[in-house]
């Protein structure tokens, strides 16, 4: 995300109430962990620093800011690129003509429905609820790509697919700008649960690549495992 307004003084990218929370929690963890637990000490110190300085490195990496005035709260942008060993035309057709395939590759996160006239309804599972949006393709040029924008629904967004032929294969660049309900908090929660647009898009593009190059999508869902200590997975796959 481009911070067009520039950075605030001292790279402040954490909102005031979050700074208070971070400083408080950090100090608490630090006091409990000092001399006892190295990870606790590190986390406590990092949180305290985050609160006092108002700067969060993780936010930096993830291009988030919750500080006032930096950019409209909740507006985000994801962009991912993958190289697929398949002809440009076929890759274009997959993305352009078969948006219904998105529910195949992004199951169980996305379900889609073709409405006609280049309009599509998507249902996207978020951390709190399922969001619905109707989108419309606004421009298209075979085999180079197309653009779309939201017409109605919960998630205001616009995006593009650009497809380039290179000597290493067909490069697909997908860019989505969106305003997610619930703003940065929803986005942060989605990141923690592996449902963030960035990770979801990356996984989807990897799966499209595997689909083209191997005819199937790698999975371990449904394979045997032992009872172990806990059935909670906590990690993807």
């Amino acid at each position: 995300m481009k911070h067009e307004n520039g950075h605030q003084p001292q790279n402040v990218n954490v909102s005031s109430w979050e700074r208070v929370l971070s400083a408080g929690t950090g100090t608490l963890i630090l006091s409990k962990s000092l001399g006892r637990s190295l990870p606790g000490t590190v986390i406590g110190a990092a949180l305290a620093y985050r609160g006092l300085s108002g700067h969060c490195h993780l936010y930096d990496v993830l291009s988030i800011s919750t500080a006032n005035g930096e950019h409209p709260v909740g507006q985000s942008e994801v962009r991912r690129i993958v190289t697929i060993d398949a002809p440009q035309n076929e890759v274009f057709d997959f993305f352009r003509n078969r948006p219904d395939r998105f529910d195949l590759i992004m199951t169980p996160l996305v379900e889609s429905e073709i409405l006609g006239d280049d309009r599509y309804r998507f249902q996207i599972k978020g951390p709190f609820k399922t969001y619905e949006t109707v989108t419309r393709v606004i421009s298209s040029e075979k085999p180079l790509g197309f653009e779309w924008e939201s017409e109605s629904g919960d998630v205001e967004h616009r995006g593009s697919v650009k497809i380039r032929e290179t000597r290493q294969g067909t490069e697909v660049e997908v860019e989505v700008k969106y305003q997610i309900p619930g703003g940065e908090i929803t986005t942060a929660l989605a990141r923690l649960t592996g449902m963030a647009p960035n990770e979801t898009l990356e996984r989807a593009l990897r799966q499209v690549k595997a689909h083209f190059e191997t005819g199937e999508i790698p999975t371990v869902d449904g394979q045997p495992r032992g009872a172990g200590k806990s059935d909670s997975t906590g990690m993807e796959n």
Partner: protein
Amino acid sequence: MKALVYHGKMDVRVENVPDPQILNPKDAIIEITRTAICGSDLHLYHGLLPALKSGDILGHEFMGVVVEIGSKIEKLQKGDRVVVPFTISCGNCFHCTKDEYSLCDNTNPSVRLAETAYGYPTAGLFGYSHMLGGYAGGQAEFVRVPFADVGCLKVPDSVSDEKALFLSDIFPTGYQAAENANIKDGDTVAIWGCGPVGLFAIKSAQMFRPEKIIAIDGVDERLDLARHIGAVTIDYRTENPLTRLPELTGGRGPDACIDAVGMEAHGHGPGAIYDKAMHLLRMQTDRPNVLRQAIHTCRKGGTISVPGAYIGIIDKLNLGTAFGKGLTFKMGQTHVQKYMKPLLDKIVNNEIDPTFLITHRDSLADAADAYQRFSEKADRCIKVVLDPKMVSQKVSEPAEATAVPSL
């Protein structure tokens, strides 16, 4: 079916789990006839891979009989006797078509974890944590093999299970280590670690006609076996490789150094103690003592080949020494599929009998005890082979066919 399941650090158990199913069209299900415990399984057993989860089935060295095939399998049939590489590779991507099977683009479903760790995902591996795909392993009665046409190698009737088994990992891994070491006729090769990979690295290095192979370890039976197959040995408990290697190479240093130890290096001296401390404090994930020694002792302009597994971050690596001496590094997971067929041919032609390092044969049911024994290097244990059909015995019988005269 029965399978060896990871429960936590130093805690693995054989328990009943559901049978594997075909999940994708290019899958096959293999009924396992022999499976082995790899030295790299001990990294898992010791709890060093954070992406391993309680409940995961371990094991990546196995072979067996095809009992079920997916709808898009073309080369395999039910009843085929096959050995399976530990790397899961699609066979079609940029890397697979360049024989870089362990770098396959398309077989690791854990994209997020792998990208966080490596930048880009590498191939999925059997039974080797969720960073590498989270695939159920083959210390079990059955296993699902994805992309089975690319992975499975049919074994001719003339080759026994035990002779073919190590084509799954340690023989190709030792061979790739030797190939990566850029060994020339008349060179001297130093190999740290005389575990199974180090021993196969010795055997493989011999195929490149070096003048001398120097093997370094601190376990008697491993040193015995290394000497038995033709290496000069350094026992690091009593001799310092940093002074001994120049002495054994006319002051030049070995032309090629192979680190067949990896992230859990032991050893003596300040470096080893520092690593142990940093490791315990979780300030580094890997202990690079062997790598430091290899960099220091390698001749100028020499090559360092690393088949030993490293997973994370290391500290105090003498990279300046490596730079100053103009060393070449080659490393990585083995591109097993590249080597299986030519190495099978060597077995068929009796150029090598890979069973030379088997010290223990156990029932799969006794696998937990076998892990403990292997981890403790107890009972002169070098390599354990598990047989799912063997009846469980509390005390495993010493192997019959071992080539070590002193055993």
